[in-house]
Every structure is written in structure tokens, then in C-alpha cells.
């Protein structure tokens, strides 16, 4: 359909252009904003592929959470970009090598899939999706594969994230002695009996504490 083609080229162009802008923008905050635009239009490309569940996950996880924290950190940092740019010529060959390697990988994969189809067709999630009864939504297809065939990998990925989270907390947690903290439970359990003392001082005399 013509509309789909227009949508594809529009979103692909936005993805590429904003990807380029991420590395070329002078202001780091602008870089992150372009990164978000790039994520967002990639999500649009997923929708065009019929993978609406993945598209929404991309938006929720990357755009809605990860990129917010990115932006948060970049806005707080005072990055001196002139200093960063000094190393540009020095790191250029290495960067070019990595980019070239990635490009070759992608070309090889696309070519192979286009001519020979995906490897080990029966194992791949896409094949499960194809073999699934018609009308099964792709959320259901992914769920079936993820929680049956790949359940150990899924659990392992969860464990890795858990360990990373615990590590981050351990690294930043400091117990300072002598800090008064609010104990909500104590406040909730306080009653007039424990919180107040009724006294009747005589005139001319104070209360000794």
C-alpha cells in the first residue's frame, strides 16, 4: 500500500537523521532528545512490521524510562564538549572500525535472511509465531516462546538485572550514624496517651522539664 510505503520511508528517514544528529549535536541534551526521536520512530517501524507489542515495549521501556534517566543525568552533568572533541581524530579509526563491522554484520544478516530464510527455522520465535494459530496476537506468541522454550534464559536475564540492581544499591548505600530519620510506624502508632503529658503547674512555678 502506498500509505505504508510513505510511512516507512518517513519513519526510516527520521530514525536515520536523528541517529546522525545524536552524534553530531553540539549540546548533549539535544543529543538525548534526538536519541528519543530515533527510538520513537523505530517503534513506528515495529508497528509497520506488525510487531505492535514490541513497539509499545520499546516506547515504555526505552523512551519512557531509560531515556528519561539519561536525560536526567545529562541535564545535571556539566559536560565540557570542547574537551571531549579533542580526542575526535584519535578515536576516529577505532570508531570507524566498529561502525564498519556492525554495518557488515547487518548486511550479511539481511542478505542471508532474504535469500535463505532465518536459520533453524523451527526454533526461532518468528517461526513459532507463524506456526501459531491464526489470530493469535503477537504478545501471546512472544509470551508462549518466552515462558516455555526460553524460560531459563529469561530467568537468567532477570537474575542478571537483579544482581546489577543489588550491586548499584550496595555501592551507593551509606549508613551515617547520628542521622535522625522519620519512622513512619512510630508516628502512626502514637496516641495522645504516649504523645502528651497533662500537667497542672501552680501559679509562679514552672514545670521542671
Amino acid at each position, binding site marked *: 500500500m502506498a500509505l505504508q510505503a510513505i510511512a516507512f520511508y518517513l519513519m526510516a528517514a527520521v530514525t536515520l537523521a536523528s541517529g546522525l544528529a545524536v552524534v553530531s549535536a553540539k549540546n548533549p541534551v539535544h543529543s538525548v532528545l534526538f536519541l528519543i526521536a530515533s527510538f520513537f520512530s523505530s517503534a513506528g517501524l515495529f508497528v509497520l512490521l506488525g510487531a505492535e507489542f514490541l513497539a509499545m515495549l520499546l516506547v515504555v521501556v526505552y523512551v519512557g524510562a531509560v531515556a528519561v534517566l539519561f536525560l536526567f543525568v545529562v541535564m545535571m552533568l556539566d559536560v565540557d564538549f570542547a574537551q571531549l572533541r579533542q580526542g575526535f581524530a584519535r578515536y576516529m579509526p577505532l570508531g570507524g572500525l566498529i561502525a564498519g563491522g556492525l554495518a557488515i554484520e547487518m548486511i550479511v544478516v539481511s542478505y542471508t535472511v532474504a535469500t535463505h530464510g532465518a536459520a533453524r527455522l523451527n526454533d526461532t520465535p518468528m517461526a513459532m509465531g507463524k506456526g501459531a494459530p491464526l489470530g493469535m*496476537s503477537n504478545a501471546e506468541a512472544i509470551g508462549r516462546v518466552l515462558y516455555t522454550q526460553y524460560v531459563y534464559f529469561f530467568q537468567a536475564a532477570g537474575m542478571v538485572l537483579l544482581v546489577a540492581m543489588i550491586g548499584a544499591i550496595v555501592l551507593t548505600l551509606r549508613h551515617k550514624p547520628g542521622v535522625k530519620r522519620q519512622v513512619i510506624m512510630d508516628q502512626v502508632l502514637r496516641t495522645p496517651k504516649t504523645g502528651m503529658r497533662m500537667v497542672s503547674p501552680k501559679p509562679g512555678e514552672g514545670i521542671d522539664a
Partner: protein
Amino acid sequence: MDFWTTPIGWLLWTVGQILLVTVPLLLIIAFLIYGDRKIFAGVQMRKGPNVVGPFGVLQSFADLGKFLIKELIVPAGADKFVFLLAPLISVTLALGSWAAMPLAPGWVISNINVGILYLFAVSSLGVYGIIMGGWASNSKYPFLGALRSAAQMVSYEVSIGFVIITVILLAGTMNLTSIVEKQAGGFWNWNILGGAGLHNLPLAIVMIPMGVIFFISGLAETNRPPFDLPEAESELVAGYAIEYGSTPYLLFYLAEFSNITLMSGLMAVLFLGGWQAPWPTHYLDGLWGTGWSWLASLHGFIMLAIKTFFVFFMNAMVRSVVPRYRYDQLMRLGWKVFLPTSLVAVVLVAGWRVYGGIG
């Protein structure tokens, strides 16, 4: 119908649908803002807006005119492009999220399979308008407001996500229209009582707190009092919106109220049966397929509107009654109370779905 399947026809058809939802929505929002101010005033024993039009009902339109004709000021040192982009992003996302909202039987612009995820995703993007606005203003108070809102909205999204998962588990689908259809037949089938009538009634113990958590997280997500820390007047003047005036401020304001209305509507759709009446509606069955089916749709729309206004009223009451949270208390509530509670609820609902028989 041939013309409507061509690209141009499709475009016209879709734009028409969008206008058909957006224009009444904006009108309703105008009156909701008036209602919000009247409720706020009523609680404080004031009169509230009462000058423009009878009982002041046209106050919002007067405000609109005032905002539109004011001068647009961009502060010196502001990042002009991002400064002006921020309110546009806010309002686009706020209005765009209505695309997946089922308004009545058959009345939805885009009936997508992952509708609930779409709404969740778009509402999680709403934070960008605020962060970008606060940062681009190049001023201390807006920046503090932006940072606060970033942390706050990301925190409360987590618990909203888990609450939404409990509803998805109950309904077995992520399509909002199907979620509403499964709650048909009376209030005992609503998700807040566990869905599926008496059989799932034990789940009400889990789902009623989930409804409450969703309501409160919705307040935090839309930066409403008692969680209005990004724009806390007594601390940050007006938070992220200080440097804004004129139309950009109007857009922020509009986006905020559109989001509040959406959250109220979402509460109605997810927990209170959406466009289903609280009683069995067999009297409408005969209308389907005849020329009168719009009457049944209108019936549904009115039901949804009543529920949405009810939740909005609760929202306004909370705003006028509850004092603002302190920032650490806000974080504690989100991470130490709502997150564990909703996580346990997900496990309980999933367990019930597997071992508690059909649902």
C-alpha cells in the same frame, strides 16, 4: 464506500474521526476546568468563578481568550526551540492518547490489540514535555520542578504498570474494547470486584486496593495535588511552568487537564466497566444491527461519561482536601508501599487465574 478505502479517503475519514473526538473533548475539558475550580472553591466555602456567563460557566472560554491574546515571551538564555517544543509535545501526547480510548460500543478511533499498552506508553512520554520545558527555561525553579517530575512520574509508572497487569490478567487481553466487553452484565462483573461475577468475588479483596492504588498513582502521574511537587507554588513558585505564559502555558494547562480526564476515563474503563451500565442491559439488545444502534452507543457513552465525571470529582475533592506530600514521603509511598503491594497483587491474581478455576 469505495472512496473511503483510497488513501485520500482514508486520510479524510481518519482526520474526521480525530476531530469528532478532539473537539468535544476540548469542550468537555473547558467545563471540567470550571467544575474543578467550583469544587475547589466550594470546599473552601468560596464562590469560585461566577462572573463570566450564568454561574460563571463560561470562565474557561474567557481564560482561553486571555491566554491567546497575551504576548509570547521567550526568556533570554532559553533554548528557544526546545522551549517552544515542550508544550507542543505535552499537548500532542495528551490528545493522542485518546485515540485508543473506547468511548462507547464501536466508538473508538483505533481499536488496537495493545490498546492498554499504548495508553501506558503515551502517558509515560508525558514527562518529556515537563522535563524539556523545565530545562529549556534556563532558570533554577523550573529546572528543580523538571527534575522532581522526572523522578516522580517514573516512580509511579512502575506501580501503574503492575496494576494494569492485574487487569490484563483478569481480562486475558490487552485490547481496551475487549476489556470493557468482558465486564458486561452488571456491576458485579466489573474488574474492581474481580470481574466475572460471584465466582471471582474473592479477588475483590485484591482488586479494590488495586483500584485505589491506580487512582492515587494517577494523581501522581498527572502531577495533581497532593502530588503536585513539580509545580508546588509554595516551594517552586510554579515549577516547570514559571517562564511560560500565553499560548504555550495554555497548551501545558490543556495537556494537564486532558491527562487528568484520561486517567479518570481509564479508571472507569479498567475497573468500573467502561461503557457498561451497572445493571444488565438486555433492553438494548434489540437495537443492534438496526438503524437505532447509535442510541445504544449513546447509552454507553453516557455511562462512561458519568463514571469519568465521578472519578474526576473524587480527583478534585482530593485536591482540595489533602495537603501536599513532602518529597521523601512521595518517594516512600511509591517505592515502599505501592510497588510491593501491586507486585503481590499480580502474583495473587495470576495464581487465582491458574488455580482458581475459570475467570
